[in-house]
Each structure stands twice: as C-alpha cells, then as structure tokens.
C-alpha cells in the first residue's frame, strides 16, 4: 500500500530514550470513488493516506482512506507532500492539532513540539487538555441542560443550540485558510475529516450523498458513547441527549460555510451514529 512518493524517515527519540522510527509516508493519491451499486455515489476523494492498516482494509463499502487512524499504533498519520499550498497548510494544521501522543504511545511531549516546529512554524501551537477532562465535563453539562427544563424536547433544542454556537466558532478557527465560500461538497468533506478528527480524534467512517442536498455521515464508533452503557433491564434506552449536541455542532459548522441545514441522527447498535444533513434550499 506504500506510496512511491514516500518521505524520508525521521528518527525521533522518545522521551524515554527509546529511538522510534517515524515513517512518514504521504502522497496525494486520488482515491477512486467506488459506488457499490447504491443510489448514493461516494464522492469522498482522499487527499492523503496512511501506509499501513488504513481503514479500507476493514472491508467498509466506502474505500475511505482513513486520514488519521486513531488506533494505528506505530506509524504517524498521513502527511501531505507537495500539493496545493492551501491543502498542505490545512494538513499541517489538522496534523498538529490532532497528534495525540497517547494514541501513538511513542511520541514524547517535546519530540512532539520539535516535530511540529518542523512542520508548521507559523501557526500557534494549540493547547491540549486531557480527553477525560472534557468527557467528565460533557457528562455534567448534558445532565445540567436536560434537568434545566421539564420538557425533554425543549432541553434537546437547548443542546442543539449550544452545539450550533460551538460548531460555528470551532469551524471558524479550523478553516482559517480554506476557500472563503467553499462548495457544498467540500464543506461536508471538511466536516467529515478535519472537523471530526479534531473533535472525535477519528474521521467519519462513511459519507454518502444523493447529490440533491442530502448527506449521510456514518460514525461506526461514536466517541461520546464509548463509555455509555445501560442496565440490561432498563426500559428506557434513549441516549439521544448525548448525541444531540453533536448534531448542533454539524449545523453550526455548516452554517459557517454558508449552508443552512437540518441535521438528524440515528443511534444504531453498539455505538454507531448516522447523521443526516438536509440542506435547506
């Protein structure tokens, strides 16, 4: 699977003194879109891919090359080699904002800084906090909002509004250098990869569209439901309040790109979430 345009290997010494070889391979491979006989064609055009255990190996119908494979243990995520400047810039920013030294388990703190300065001297080094810190805060926020009004629908609206506000501003920060008024398709793809990677540390697993303003995004391992589990005998197994905020995030992000839309979602078995974006003409 390795790409001929492979980069030189950078040896980065881990904090613990153990030398690790980061084999950074990247290349603008044009992923062929392969529709599997479904009415929806998959336009997801890959712009960079990781060499080893990329997602397409897990026989998902959509050969999405997984931009950042959060559970790949040994090699660094795909890095764009000489491609469009805007694209490269966006790669670097997203690259640096979603390096998680824990997932890779090999990158020490300062070797991460040192590696970042090579890649993107200009943008400020983003601050990171522990994922469980946000997780504990998120649990409490949802509980607080749901309790703040007796009517469940009203509480869901509040969560949706909160998500909208955050999504709108978050995308503002992330898309500093994408085209001012990106196309509809590019915006959705941006959300599937860059936005999703920043918030959920993985990209959307599947994107489909009917080219008439309806997009279906599938996240087969929705991060914010990973630790959630019901009592087997529980009658009410509704955990939609933990996903409603994300629907708001998507809506806010899309509105920042200039597209007004309705976002609905469906929680399937284990922790798969399918988000449907309907663009309002």
């Amino acid at each position, binding site marked *: 699977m390795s790409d001929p345009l492979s980069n030189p290997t950078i040896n980065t010494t881990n*904090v613990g003194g153990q030398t690790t070889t980061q084999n950074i391979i990247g290349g603008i491979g044009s992923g062929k879109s392969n529709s599997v006989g479904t009415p929806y064609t998959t336009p997801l055009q890959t712009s960079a891919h990781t060499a080893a255990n990329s997602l397409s190996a897990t026989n998902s119908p959509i050969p999405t090359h997984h931009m950042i494979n959060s559970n790949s243990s040994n090699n660094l995520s795909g890095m764009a080699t000489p491609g469009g400047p805007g694209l490269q810039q966006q790669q670097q920013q997203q690259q640096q*904002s*979603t390096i*998680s*030294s*824990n*997932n890779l388990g090999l990158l*020490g*703190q300062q070797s991460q800084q040192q590696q970042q300065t090579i890649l993107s001297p200009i943008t400020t080094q*983003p*601050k*990171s*906090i*522990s*994922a*469980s*810190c*946000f997780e*504990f*805060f*998120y*649990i*409490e*926020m949802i*509980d*607080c*909002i749901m309790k*703040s009004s007796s009517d469940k629908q009203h509480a869901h609206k*509040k969560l949706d509004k*909160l998500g909208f*506000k*955050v999504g709108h*501003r*978050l995308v503002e*920060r992330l898309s500093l250098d994408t085209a001012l008024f990106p196309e509809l398709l590019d915006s959705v793809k941006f959300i599937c990869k860059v936005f999703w990677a*920043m*918030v959920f*540390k993985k990209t959307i697993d599947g994107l489909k569209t009917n080219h008439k303003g309806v997009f279906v995004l599938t996240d087969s391992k929705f991060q914010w439901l990973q630790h959630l589990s019901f009592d087997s005998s529980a009658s009410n197994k509704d955990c939609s309040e933990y996903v409603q905020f994300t629907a708001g995030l998507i809506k806010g992000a899309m509105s920042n790109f200039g597209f007004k839309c309705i976002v609905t979602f469906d929680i399937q078995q284990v922790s798969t979430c399918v988000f449907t974006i309907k663009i309002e003409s």
Partner: protein
Amino acid sequence: MSKKYDKLGNDVFNKVEKINSELFTLTYGALVTQLIKDYEDIEQVNIKLEQMGYNIGIRLIEEFLAKSGIGRCSDFIETAEVIAKVGFKMFLGINAHVGDWDADRKEFHLTIEDNPLIDFVELPEQYKHKLYYSNILCGVIRGALEMVQMKVKCTFVKCTLSDDTTSEIKVVLEEVLSDMIPVGYD
C-alpha cells in the same frame, strides 16, 4: 517536593489521551452564557457552576487516583502540591502554584497560569468581580477532595478576567472526614 510532583504531572499528562482545548473552551463558554440566560442573577450562576464542578469532581477523582497512582498524602501541604502539580497538569495541561499558607497550614492559594477555560474570553464590564467565570474549578476541587476525606471550601479570590493580575483560588480545609462507621460497630 514540588519538583517530584512536577515530573509526575508531566509524565501522567504525556500518557493520557489528549484533545485540542478549543472544543473545551468554546463549549464551556457556550454553557456559561446559557446559564446567564437561564438564571439572570449572576450569583446563582456562580453557585450552579460550583455545583456542576462538584459533580464532576466526585467522578474525576477516580480517574486521577487510577491514572496517577498517587498514594495517601502525608499532610494538607502535600495535598496542595499534588493538586497543583499533578491534578491541574494531568487534566488541563497547565501549571498551578501553591502559596500564601496561613499559620496553621489549613488554608492556601492556588495560582493558575494560562487557564484554558478563559482563552479568548472577554468579560463584559457588568460581570467583572461578580461572575466567577471559572468557578467550576472550585467545585471540582471540593468534590474530588471530599471523596478522599477532606472537606474544603474553595473560592476565587482573583481572576484575570476581572482585570486582576493573576487567577487565584483560595482553598480552606474545614474538616478531615473519617470512614463511615457501619451500623452496630463501635
């Protein structure tokens, strides 16, 4: 002692899974503005934030104990160092400093540097010195310490959002709790 905990704080922070702090900053900001809308009375917002922090603290302490492997602190002074150097670093990736101990070592101030909650936040004039924007942190400390048998009171005494030079939390040890005595046992 604090050098030892500095190193531990960094080690644990390097190990834990991390995310970009902007999501946290923006979500927290949205929540605070929502609370201001819901409660109007700023003092109620402060109380609500502290209460939310408390509910977070009673869960967060378990992650802290499990991931940092910290043993029992010999005294309140060591507890303060652990909070500042390990707790704040492990969860928020920032450094905090302990100072201004009172005579009988029951009260100290925690000075927080580059608190991610207040990134890009401009507090409107009417809220200055009224809204304790990061009051959730006081609740987290109170909740966490209560789970390890220390009843404390935490309040913001200085906040850079209200044009103070630093952000400082005053932590007062009110009581050391003992284990629950089961019924029927002396």
